[in-house]
């Protein structure tokens, strides 16, 4: 059974990347705090609405007491937010957005988004991406790889399917060639806009094998809803076999 689909419920999708748990914990902290604040408000308000209705309280009291004490919720929430931002938030954000893995330790993939597909580009065994040129793009070469470029010879390209090995971080360089798209994998708790003219790098490290859906999270035109792809997380040996197969198919 595929974990990606079996664990879907009314709550969050299964946490399938190394940092998904951290994000889920933040979500939990925040929603617990929100629920607590809301319940306190609601209980207080419900009490007032009954206790001070006209029938129970025919005359209002003109003055207000304890003006200073009214700052208590503001101060408490401010302290909570400072703790949340600087103790909880900053380390997680730095971890997921700024601590990119070194390319030699990671599976490096370039993803080019277009209306309405995800084009994946692997550098192959030489670790070098071949040159892409916009003028070379056509149906046979969706990425526009330059066949004359020696670095391109071992490159692997695929459409709407991304294969990655388990146990190693994946470094994705994202861009788009027409409009803005957004690379969203719910189980990995990762999302990054793919912006034409820009290269944005993100990383994630899957913790389980399986098939995970890539959705587009930024309105990109009439096919936005069907712009989907799949990430297949494979055990290391299966991934190596696939990559070898791609290489073999290319060079008879």
């Amino acid at each position, binding site marked *: 059974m595929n974990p990606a689909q079996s664990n879907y419920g009314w709550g969050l999708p299964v946490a399938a990347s190394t940092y998904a748990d951290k994000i889920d914990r933040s979500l939990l902290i925040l929603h617990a705090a929100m629920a607590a604040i809301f319940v306190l408000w609601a209980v207080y308000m419900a009490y007032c609405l009954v206790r001070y209705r006209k029938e129970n309280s025919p005359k209002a009291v003109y003055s207000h007491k304890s003006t200073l004490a009214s700052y208590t919720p503001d101060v408490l929430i401010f302290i909570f937010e400072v703790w949340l931002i600087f103790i909880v938030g900053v380390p997680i954000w730095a971890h997921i957005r700024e601590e990119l893995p070194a390319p030699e330790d990671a599976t490096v993939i370039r993803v080019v988004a277009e209306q309405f597909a995800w084009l994946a580009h692997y550098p192959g065994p030489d670790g070098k991406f071949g040159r892409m040129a916009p003028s070379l793009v056509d149906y046979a070469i969706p990425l526009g790889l330059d066949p004359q470029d020696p670095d391109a010879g071992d490159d692997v390209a695929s459409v709407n399917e991304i294969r990655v090995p388990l146990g190693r971080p994946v470094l994705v360089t994202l861009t788009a060639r027409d409009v*803005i798209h957004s690379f969203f994998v719910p189980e990995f708790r990762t*999302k990054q806009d793919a912006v034409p*003219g820009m290269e944005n790098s993100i990383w994630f490290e899957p913790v389980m094998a399986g098939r995970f859906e890539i959705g587009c999270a930024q309105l990109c035109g*009439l096919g936005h809803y069907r712009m989907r792809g799949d990430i297949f997380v494979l055990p290391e040996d299966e991934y190596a076999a696939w990559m070898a197969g791609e290489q073999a198919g290319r060079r008879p």
Partner: protein
Amino acid sequence: MTAAVHREESFIGKWIFSRDHKVIGLQYMFTSLVFLLIGFSLILLIRWQLAYPGRPIPFIGDLLPDSLAPGGIMMPDFYNSLGAMHGTIMIFLGIVPLGVGAFGNYFLPLQIGAKDMAFPTLNMSSYWVYFVGGVLMLSSFVLPGGAARAGWTSYVPLSVISSGQTTWLLAMTFLITSSLLGAINFIVTTLNLRAPGLTWSRLPLFVWAQFVTGLILLFAFPVLQAGAVLQLLDRVAQTSFYMPQGLIISGELSQRGGGGNALLWQHLFWFLAHPEVYVLLLPPMGIVAEILANGTRKPIFGYKEVAGSFCFIAVLSFMVWAHHMFVSGLKTSLSYLFMTTTMTISIPSIAILTCYLLSLRNASIRYTVPMLFTLAFLPMFGIGGLTGLPLGFTPTDVYLHDTYYVIGHFHYVVVTGTLIALFGGIYYWFPKMFGRSMNMFWGKVHFWGTIVLMNLIFFPMFIQGLAGVQRRLYDPTVQLHNLTVQPTNVLMSYASWGLLLFQVPFIVNFFWSIFKGARSEENPWQATTLEWACPSPPLPHVNFEKVPTVHRGPYEYSVPGREADFWPQNEEN
């Protein structure tokens, strides 16, 4: 009495091209209510598609042209148009003109004891510019190219290459101009036309809210105006302000010069559009203060704290815009700044809510219809505000960004918050505007139906968002991860159609009461602020029989040692 009162005016001079702030306020009110209904109707079509993707729309489907919905089945392009126009109409043609244009125009001069706005002709032009912009926006459905379909946010490059966008940009130019003219008028009026004795610390909170809103509009809108002009140039003059080099659109290499930046639009847009949220929110917060003081029969808790928080919000609202761009490719280290400012802006909002809640203590609460709406505003806006926290907090925003969680968040703020308070304002000030009051039984029916159904529509959005359902999907069932929460879409859709049904009592009540409602006296709610010191409806062009003098603060209810439990601002002793 001045001669102006007796001057005979033609119908056109009195009701169409009027310079009287009250007529202009009513024009804004009727127009914006119509636009609210139109904007709401658009989303009802979307709700059908979301609940039953790909099935022909019943009843209405046959009436739609084949280019939009062949066989009654909505096309993706039409879906995107409906979504973009729903957002645009609700915000720029519905809520802002109702909260600022209608209530601001009608009641700001009355509450400060003025005869009119500072610039009556400017006021009239601001309405008519808005009207032209609104009609143009709406007519885009039938103009060649159709309605805009790149979202109400109009992100480039999609908007530059989508049809219908030129009309949207032109219409927006009118709407922005209208708002700017109005903002200048509100600011100058508040600064210069206050009645004798009406110091800043005696100003009703509604006036504070409108004044601060005017400042926000004045500083934020020119930026969007400029941004929209650049986008228009990108569309019609093939410039590349927002278009980077080497775009390949539908397999064709773009021949534009390039060199533009796609994120520039987002910066310019959100620099307006985040302050805009507070433009939507502050006037209703002012209305809530008025009704709350009146319905609790006691002064608002922390008057200065609330007024100060309005100002603090206004300043901070210009420093948070990039929280809409945490996953856009904005430099990640910049996010720390915007996360901090965003979390900070929650503090004044919480301060305001705390003051309002504490106002209930030791009160003598009257459960009138306006008060019901006001009381509902407090927890509902609370949910809207609280759910903003996980979106302003970058680690959780990465997951929730562009999901239904965001939609749920801002609908709780703008609909169950703002719109509910505006409804309360209509019931509260109706007797002043028309000299008659609305039916309270049907007001209660409207209230309960509306508040329950709104929650049934918007609360499931949080569940969908947490499950990872993206926004703006024509058919969510195409993606596997959306399937488990699909049943909530059916519930939400039925709730939304029910919500339409529960607006019927309001619409009928509103028009029936204008002509047949129970006659109302000058001050039916026994309120303290100046608008209740003039006849209902106020005298054309001069409002007050004589200019009132203000002796005290705005919310002197239940003052010890006095027999009446309210002490109007203009009463001498």
